[in-house]
């Protein structure tokens, strides 16, 4: 086989490799699903972010409109500060509220944005005022058990002073 044709074959080989890489990057991974250029930043503070992760989606009415860019702790208020990368084309009123929700019973957590009615919109870098923390299953359960115990304690309670009164 001539040298030229071997070079061509190796060229085809490398080209196949590059095509495979492009396939993996663009079709099978998230490169190209909105990059950094056409986004703006919003902040939101939560008392408890639960299991929220970086790159989790931000959804409004179920439509993905942004992603969580970073999660940090405010050293003064001890609240979780979540930085959101929002798509430039959608803007939200200044009185919008953010909630941390779970998709399905065991699914990933995401941020749900509910648009408010104000005419002014949130400018880049502004903080969403109204937030609702993630629901932590353990605290729900303990609250439930606590209520149960309180109910159970409430019914025999009138009997106790009655007994004490007799003695």
């Amino acid at each position: 086989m001539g040298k030229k044709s071997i070079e061509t074959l190796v060229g085809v080989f490398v080209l196949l490799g590059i095509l495979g890489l492009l396939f993996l990057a663009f079709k099978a991974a998230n490169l190209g699903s909105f990059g950094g250029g056409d986004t703006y930043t919003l902040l939101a503070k939560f008392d408890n972010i639960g299991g929220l992760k970086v790159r989790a989606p931000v959804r409004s009415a179920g439509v993905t409109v942004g992603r969580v860019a970073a999660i940090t702790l405010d050293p003064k208020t001890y609240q979780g500060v979540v930085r959101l990368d929002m798509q430039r084309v959608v803007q939200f009123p200044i009185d919008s509220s953010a909630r941390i929700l779970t998709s399905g019973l065991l699914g990933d957590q995401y941020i749900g944005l509910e648009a408010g009615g104000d005419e002014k919109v949130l400018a880049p870098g502004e903080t969403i005022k109204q937030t609702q923390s993630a629901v932590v299953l353990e605290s729900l359960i303990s609250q439930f058990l606590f209520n149960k115990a309180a109910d159970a304690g409430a019914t025999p309670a009138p009997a106790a002073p009655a007994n004490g009164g007799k003695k």
Partner: protein
Amino acid sequence: MTNPFTFVGARTIEVLRALGHHAYFFVALLRSIPTALRRPLLVIQQVHAIGNLSLLIIMASGLAVGFVLALQSYYALVTYGASESLGLLVNLSLVRELGPVVTALLFAGRAGTSLTAEIGLMKAGEQLAAMEMMAIDPKSRVLAPRFLGGIVAMPVLAVLFSSIGILGAYVVAVRLIGVDDGNFWSIMQNGVDVWRDVGNGILKSIVFGVICTFVAVYQGYETQATPEGVAHATTRTVVFSSLSVLAMDFVLTALMFSH
């Protein structure tokens, strides 16, 4: 057998010496690379011999692995009503683990053995000695181009393995079983990160390329110049490169994906 102490001590020294010899050989090989790069055609010929000729087995295996992975994970996932996540599962298993590792194992069997046998026979036929007589360094003329060719070919083969595997999983899951087309891709795209998953997978395959080709070249060069010697060297190539790839894979995975 003599005194057990003598036996253990002798084996220990033997292992340490082999380790040192490997390290010495590796450095010598690295130092001969600049000379080899002055004749890129030799490297290109090796990429052809190592890469192009391994293409068929790599792609066939990738397709088969993708098919089976899709079927198996479908049966497991459908119990939890999560069959849409099939694409993500297949993609991550292929890109992070199976792509680099299975490609390296196949590579050791397909290309590593032929490198060892070729170099071993060159040595047995005293071609390497003849080169040295003509003041040509066999390391830079014979070994380094093969080494470089292997390092170039391995990541390309691993990427193709993963891509073909994902396409195979797509065919089985979406076309045959009927998993939703859009969910298959979108859950995959949401869950796979280009740098963290795809990038680390490629980094792995480059490391495996270095390991496999180095073992093959070393075993060929250090073979005993007899038919049995070449046979043993070829066997050792497969055994050593497979074991080192598997061990290295654990270390790399722990380093890359722990955080």
